[in-house]
């Protein structure tokens, strides 16, 4: 992923004078909140707002085809112009945020839930269970992510639910690996050994002792994954193998618009920019979150 530093990060608050007793720091060290996370969070927030209020904020029905006004350039009536069948591009871009967010969040949720469970089981039980589960994860990981998502959604049939499953399966191994690694390192720590000696069962160990210690890296991973999931959905829909038409998806808008590039570039440029901004925002947010939550980065200077 992207490196951890940005010029803005170097603007640090001055060190506390020695006489002042430093306040106890909680999980979140607010001084490490970089502008990166603020920018990312505000754009993500704006996207969520647009997605939720799309019904009120768009001037037209995104699927209303006005054949009298097809491929009109941006104007006061249609701020982003109209597409090849006379639909309002602005309305489709705003509704597209809904699809992108929905697919991004649910797909990552699917991958995360399955991956975390597999990682916990593999890490706690070890032995052949671990071996089999992790080799399967390795095999999934060996496929180029986009190609695997493409093949799964082609086999299951296109549509929003199948695409979520396809993307979720692709992201499963990264969570399984992450959680397994964490479990293996935490499993041998004194507090877990102590709990075991006291007779705690596997479930209790998992829920009370190991789970709280793996949540932070999972959250970071998930927030970064949402951006790649949005990209993957856009790519699949661009190839015509994602959500079904006429569902307004940024990728499928680009797919329909690209052939009119020479005469109607707005058909491609606005949906493309929407994907770009969404992915950028989730990347900034995830990166900022990592700086905030990663214990290896916390309390240290710049990496």
């Amino acid at each position, binding site marked *: 992923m*992207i490196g951890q530093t940005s010029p803005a990060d170097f603007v640090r608050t001055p060190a506390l004078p020695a006489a002042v007793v430093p306040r106890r720091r909680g999980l979140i060290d607010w001084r490490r909140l970089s502008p990166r996370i603020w920018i990312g969070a505000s754009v993500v927030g704006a996207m969520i707002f647009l997605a939720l209020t799309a019904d009120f904020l768009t001037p037209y029905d995104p699927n209303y085809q006005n054949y009298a006004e097809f491929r009109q350039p941006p104007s006061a009536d249609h701020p982003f112009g109209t597409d090849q069948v006379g639909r309002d591009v602005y309305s489709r871009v705003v509704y597209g945020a809904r699809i992108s967010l929905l697919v991004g969040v649910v797909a990552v949720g699917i991958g995360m839930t399955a991956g975390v469970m597999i990682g916990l089981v593999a890490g706690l039980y070890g032995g052949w269970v671990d071996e089999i589960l992790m080799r399967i994860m390795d095999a999934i990981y*060996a*496929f180029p992510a986009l*190609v695997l998502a493409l093949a799964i959604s082609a086999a299951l049939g296109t549509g929003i639910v199948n695409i979520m499953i396809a993307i979720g399966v692709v992201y499963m191994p990264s969570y399984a690996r992450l959680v397994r690694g964490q479990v293996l390192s935490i499993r041998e720590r004194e507090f877990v050994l102590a709990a075991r000696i006291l007779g705690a069962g596997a479930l209790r160990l998992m829920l009370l002792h190991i789970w709280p210690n793996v949540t932070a890296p999972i959250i970071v991973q998930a927030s970064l994954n949402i951006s790649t999931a949005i990209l993957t959905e856009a790519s699949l829909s661009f190839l015509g*193998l994602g959500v079904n038409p006429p569902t307004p998806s940024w990728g499928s808008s680009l797919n329909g618009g690209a052939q009119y590039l020479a005469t109607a570039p707005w058909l491609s440029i606005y949906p*493309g920019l929407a994907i770009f901004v969404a992915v950028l925002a989730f990347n900034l947010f995830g990166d900022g979150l990592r700086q905030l939550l990663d214990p290896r980065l916390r309390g240290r200077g710049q990496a």
Partner: protein
Amino acid sequence: MARFIARRFISMVPLLILVSMMAFSLILLLPGDPALAILGEERANADNKAAYYALRAELGLDDPVPIQYLRWAGRAVRGDFGMSIRNKTPIGETIGTRIWPTAELALLAAIISVVIAFPAGIISALRPNSWADAGATLAALGGVAIPHFFLGILLIYAFAVWFRVLSPSGYVAPWEDLGQNLKLMIMPAFAVGTGLAAILMRQIRSALIEVLNQEYVITARSKGLAERAVVIGHALKNASIPVITIMGQQVGTLIGGAVVTETIFAIPGMGRLIVESISFRDFPVVQAAVLMLALSVLVANLLTDITYGFLDPRIRHD
């Protein structure tokens, strides 16, 4: 070294078997059975039962799944993936011709990313927090976020529609006309390589900053070596090792990017093959193509490991 390579190669075999099982089982995900999916519900109805049973027999669907897998894998090892349902040609041959444009595109994209990332990363690392560094950081953030296909479309708009210096799409094999081939491949390769360039640049920057603070670099400086010799001869060598890791990890992304980008630029590679085959319900081709792409990733990972072994003797002997 030979023993190290052999060991790595053998350790890849179980993974290879699992990967082939997964590629095979894609066909099991199809609703109904593959013959039904290929023919389509409407064409496999009552008055067309004969065609349906013939296709079932042709695909060997009457045998149990493990037998089907073993037969498929046994042939695949010899490069025989059966016949394409769409145009009745051997799938192995089709893949043999379709894999080269994708390989070339991925290779050119990797070259472009290295050519961009090294100078940008070095400049950033030498003057951290300068305007050049801030600019490179911003460009890298953008480079990671922009979808390959959107960048491709923007490039076509700029260079084919606006300036009219490049043709928007098409493909000529390099052995037919290398100049024309490169002229057609430059935009797609750039579209695919930008994301990797951004990732590499950040990696080179942080690795180089770390290495430049190490004692051997201070020694090299204090014995009066020119800055250029210090950076290029001493620091960059060590800073390059993580770059190889990233390259190895990103091969899959590179291939995925090539697959999408081929569609925009009308390059007859594996991506177009997969997308076309899906729309014609030619699933045996999809299976074979997906398997071959996964295989390419595995081979690339093996090569990364071997390169590591060459660079760092400690890895060879553990």
